[in-house]
């Protein structure tokens, strides 16, 4: 697959077309699966890895429910290309950084991706825009069921789907939503909310998963337990908690509008101003400022921009995307200059030229 053609289009999950997409960026489910006839990854030989990938690719090619899939050889891809796929959320950091034969198959809408030789032999992932966990489950369940007729999953009647790490055993399912919660962060209520979530066995992570900081006020909420509850129960549990968080965020926004309107408008406008005029800018600062602007658009403080365009800016200003867009490798200082240039072009496109 040619990565260049992905660069100029937008994954479906970024289009802000789903329900509540002003606050809920995306809904995602992943399934961990292993093949019965091979040892798990840490005991798999190089030859095993090659065979696992071949077998899975052959089966995935026969799938009818996800549309045509394209294959990408991750072990042959260079660092920038692997990072590019991580930024688009098509592969995990674990798959990008590990060694040996490994790959991914992706459908055209970039909603379904199947990672081969990740922590488990197979990780199936499905992602939709906005709050649509039931839709995601319906789609990923079809893919998984069809695939289970074509390959021999490691499954045990008592323990369920057998996984390399016992934290995933049973359903092997991780249900997560990515939320944009700038007002909760600004009013410093976010810690309180997270402590409450952890009490009910939900994990909170940053934009790029485990260990990543909550950059740009994006937070991922997901289930931690995978055994003893059905997949639909787990989907419902996460689905139930999201409207509560949306409500908190909306109330925090109302509070800011009512009580600190001037201050809020000032912060949003300054953020927008810097993004439109800066000559060099880091990835962190960009995320931070884009977050303010995103909220500003949702609150009607900035009218000439829309959310899909802003979502795109979040991804396109990531290091590997910038380099793919530019068509060459760039070191950090050059990336910061390129990022500022890209933002100026994008954000001054529709209004009077300011650059």
């Amino acid at each position, binding site marked *: 697959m040619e990565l260049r053609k992905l660069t100029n289009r937008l994954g479906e999950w970024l289009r802000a077309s789903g329900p509540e997409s002003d606050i809920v960026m995306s809904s995602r489910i992943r399934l961990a699966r292993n093949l*019965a006839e091979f040892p798990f990854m840490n005991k798999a030989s190089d030859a095993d890895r090659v065979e696992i990938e071949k077998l899975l690719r052959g089966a995935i090619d026969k799938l009818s429910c996800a549309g045509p899939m394209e294959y990408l050889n991750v072990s042959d891809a260079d660092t920038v290309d692997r990072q590019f796929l991580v930024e688009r959320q098509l592969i995990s950091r674990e798959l990008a950084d590990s060694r040996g034969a490994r790959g991914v198959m992706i459908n055209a809408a970039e909603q379904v991706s199947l990672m081969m030789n990740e922590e488990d032999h197979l990780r199936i992932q499905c992602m939709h825009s906005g709050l649509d966990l039931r839709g995601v489950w319906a789609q990923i369940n079809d893919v998984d069921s069809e695939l289970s007729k074509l390959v*021999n999953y490691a499954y045990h*009647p008592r323990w369920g789907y057998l996984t390399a790490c016992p*934290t995933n055993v049973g359903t092997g399912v991780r249900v997560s939503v990515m939320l944009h919660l700038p007002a909760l962060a600004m009013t*410093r209520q976010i810690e309180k909310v997270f402590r409450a979530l952890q009490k009910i066995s939900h994990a909170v992570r940053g934009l790029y998963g485990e260990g990543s900081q909550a950059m740009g006020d994006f937070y991922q909420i*997901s289930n931690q337990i*995978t055994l003893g509850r*059905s997949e639909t129960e787990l989907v419902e549990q996460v689905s139930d908690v999201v409207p509560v968080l949306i409500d908190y965020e909306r109330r925090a926004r109302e509070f800011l509008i009512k009580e600190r309107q001037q201050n809020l408008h000032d912060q949003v406008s300054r953020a927008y101003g810097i993004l439109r005029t800066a000559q060099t800018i880091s990835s962190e600062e960009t995320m931070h400022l884009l977050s303010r602007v995103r909220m500003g658009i949702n609150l009607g403080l900035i009218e000439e921009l829309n959310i899909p365009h802003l979502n795109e800016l979040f991804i396109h200003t990531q290091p590997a995307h910038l380099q793919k867009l530019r068509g060459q490798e760039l070191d950090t200082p050059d990336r910061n200059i390129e990022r500022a240039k890209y933002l100026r072009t994008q954000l001054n496109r529709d209004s009077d030229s300011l650059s």
Partner: protein
Amino acid sequence: MKCQKCEKPATFHITELEGGKHQELHFCEECAKVYLAPPANQEAESGALASAFAQQAQLGQTAEELSKLDQQACPVCGITFLEFRNSGRLGCSHDYVAFEKELEPLIANIHGETKHTGKQPQRYTEGTEALTELIRLRREMKDAIGQENYERAGKLRDQIKQLEDHSKTTS
């Protein structure tokens, strides 16, 4: 008042209560955010396992018992319990049988349950013995091919196929 971390004006004043003493902290917005942010979130996956291990260690097992347990190995993939404890990853599906006694309390600790109630694959090989057999046969077949013993490899391939065809169809 200036932020105690940088030179910007302090807009957040935090009172920390610890052990009966209270401490006043003064930060600008950025530094306050850093201060209040949770530690890099690792507890999610690896942490659940680590805390389950820690709890297990408190269950009155002596050091001797623990070191004996650590040396136990899975007959199929050869992983020792110590290796698993260190890496947090199992070596093959048979480990769930080979270490069942040790894994059960660990899994109960992580998930609060010890029985799968979710979906089943459309077909699967009944019983872990058959699963183990599949791994063993495939390994032997590879060895046979390596030794250019194609007759034996062919026989093994038939056996694998037979086992897979006996897979339980659940749909």
